């Protein structure tokens, strides 16, 4: 390959069309102009000049003012009328005296006017300067056109960006027991990431994120199309079947495009997640963070691909995050969604309205909001509503763990502390043993073994225990009530003497040390324990 710097483009001399009815004058001008470095064409009048101009594009026309037939101004008017694009500069040569001819010449559209007799050096200089001025005008005009086109394109892209953002669901969305929010921060005006949320008449809520390979307008168009297709498919099919059909649709469309897609569907008590190529979907419960990896190739790559879903209990998992790799890969966290969750400040549930500032949180990840992300960055959050929930449990030893887990899962994440679980286990065990079974602490004495046998022999009492979780922004109250024996009034206090040897009093100490507040109903059959946020 030849190096660019060895190429040289020879400069082509500017072409000047000399229009004059006098052959000797044309000859004179030709000589002067050729010596000045120009190429020259000649025409003996308006007719020949117009013929030549139909074929050639001279840099300048040197025009005699007085010619038989159509004179100089007459020819120039015709020329100007015929010009559609750039304007050919024209310089008049005239022997006429006075200002009238000059005015007529300029009025007809001349760029310059030279009086005869002509000094050859003046002629060359005036021709050069007129060509240069015309070039400058043309360059400025081109720049104006380009700027206009660029503005137009920018406006269109801005309109496209607004439209794409408007097509995203307005968040937060309250859907059943869940609040759903999401945001897309594209790396350009338009992005290949979208998210969407649908809700079926039976209450099933489905949310998904699509990340089309590539960026910009093409990716945005494909993303919009994939979104529409997926919405239709999800209305008729399960998430796995919808993903499989989307895959076949994209493979058959020959668009040479593929998309990473993650679907989260909440139906009654089950969360179903299908991940095809996105970073792991992150589901948070009181006890753990589950990561749901991709189980199938991104739709559009392999026609025969199949997809599997992961099912989680909506009773346990109360916060779900789906994010595109634009929020993980730039930070070297390709598969570490928890890291992104922490950076985005999402470890704690929302204090305010969920989702209003998600876009801002995402943007802040990139040079504190001063830079665009290197890739489209998208986040979808599903958060189980922190609402008051009540559930009845059988009075049986097996219920203790179930009731504690159920209540802890409904407590806000900030309240899910070790002391909540210790305290709740104690409260619920007491409600069952002392309240529902009616086995008073005083009767336990020292014979714990016999006491445990008695407890084990107690028949379960269906629905005798009611647990209510009342979360709020600042506190989480848990009420535990029971059918059976009331707690004796003298024991409704944290100030019981603690006997290190006898079991009596130890449970009370644990309960009162575990909660910020413990209060009793008047009838002694319900205790309310509170964990405060601060």
């Amino acid at each position, binding site marked *: 390959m030849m190096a660019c710097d060895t190429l040289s483009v020879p400069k082509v001399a500017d072409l000047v069309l000399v229009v004059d009815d006098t052959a000797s004058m044309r000859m004179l001008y030709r000589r002067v102009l050729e010596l000045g470095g120009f190429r020259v064409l000649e025409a003996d009048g308006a007719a020949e000049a117009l013929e030549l101009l139909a074929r050639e594009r001279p840099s300048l026309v040197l025009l005699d003012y007085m010619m038989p037939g159509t004179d100089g101004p007459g020819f120039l008017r015709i020329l100007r009328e015929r010009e559609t694009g750039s304007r050919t500069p024209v310089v008049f040569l005239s022997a006429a005296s006075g200002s009238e001819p000059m005015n007529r010449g300029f009025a007809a559209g001349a760029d310059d006017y030279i009086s005869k007799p002509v000094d050859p050096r003046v002629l060359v200089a005036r021709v050069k300067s007129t060509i240069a001025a015309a070039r400058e005008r043309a360059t400025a005009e081109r720049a104006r056109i380009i700027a206009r086109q660029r503005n137009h394109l920018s406006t269109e892209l801005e309109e496209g960006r607004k439209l794409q953002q408007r097509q995203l669901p307005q968040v937060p969305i309250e859907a059943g027991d869940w609040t759903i929010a999401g945001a897309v921060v594209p790396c350009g005006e338009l992005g290949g990431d979208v998210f969407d949320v649908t809700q079926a008449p039976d209450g099933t809520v489905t949310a998904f994120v699509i990340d089309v390979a590539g960026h910009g307008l093409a990716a945005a168009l494909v993303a919009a199309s994939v979104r529409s297709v997926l919405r239709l498919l999800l209305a008729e099919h399960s998430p796995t079947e919808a993903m499989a059909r989307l895959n076949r649709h994209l493979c058959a469309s020959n668009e040479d495009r593929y998309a990473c897609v993650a679907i989260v569907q909440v139906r009654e008590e089950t969360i179903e997640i299908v991940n095809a190529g996105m970073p792991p979907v992150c589901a948070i419960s009181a006890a753990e963070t589950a990561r749901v990896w991709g189980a199938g190739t991104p739709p559009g790559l392999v026609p025969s691909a199949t997809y599997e879903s992961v099912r989680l209990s909506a009773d346990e998992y109360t916060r779900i995050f789906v994010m595109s790799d634009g929020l993980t890969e730039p930070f070297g966290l390709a598969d570490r969604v928890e890291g992104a969750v922490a950076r985005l400040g999402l470890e704690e549930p929302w204090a305010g309205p969920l989702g209003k500032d998600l876009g801002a949180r995402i943007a802040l990840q990139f040079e504190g909001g001063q830079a665009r992300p290197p890739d489209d960055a998208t986040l979808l959050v599903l958060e189980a509503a922190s609402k008051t929930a009540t559930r009845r449990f059988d009075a049986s030893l097996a219920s203790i763990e179930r009731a504690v887990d159920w209540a802890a899962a409904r407590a806000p994440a900030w309240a899910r502390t*070790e002391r909540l*679980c210790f305290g709740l286990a104690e409260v619920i065990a007491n409600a069952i*043993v002392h309240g529902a079974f009616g086995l008073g602490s005083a009767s336990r004495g*020292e014979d714990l073994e016999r006491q445990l046998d008695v407890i084990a022999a107690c028949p379960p009492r269906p629905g005798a225990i009611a647990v209510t979780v009342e979360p709020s922004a600042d506190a989480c109250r848990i009420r535990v009530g029971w059918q059976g024996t009331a707690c004796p009034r003298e024991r409704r206090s944290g100030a019981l003497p*603690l006997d290190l040897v006898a*079991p009596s009093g130890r449970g009370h100490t644990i309960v009162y040390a575990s909660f910020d507040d413990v209060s009793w109903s008047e009838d002694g059959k319900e205790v309310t324990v509170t964990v405060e946020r601060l």
Partner: protein
Amino acid sequence: MTGYEVTHIGDISVIALPARTSVGNAKQLLDAVQRELQTGRRRIFLDLRKTLTVDSTALGAIVQLARAAAGRGGELTLLGPNEGVRRVLAITRLDSILGIRASMPVDVGSLSP
């Protein structure tokens, strides 16, 4: 009900407690330790390294077992309680009467096979 796994390391009986040790499984704890004491073993370690919560009934069982071991000239030691369990032992002041160790004594080797 959760079973209690017993391992013998030297003269020590190590009994692993479940994640939630409570009134629901305290009876099995009593039975497991008493079996060891009745077979003449005197050094009992209750392995709490996987235990998340202990309720007051289970604490009562542990106190009773510690007394039973002492009565036979032996000792009962809590092994590796987590922060939460330690806190409960502290607020019920049982940390002052129960032996607590973070790990196994060096002279009996590791618990891991």
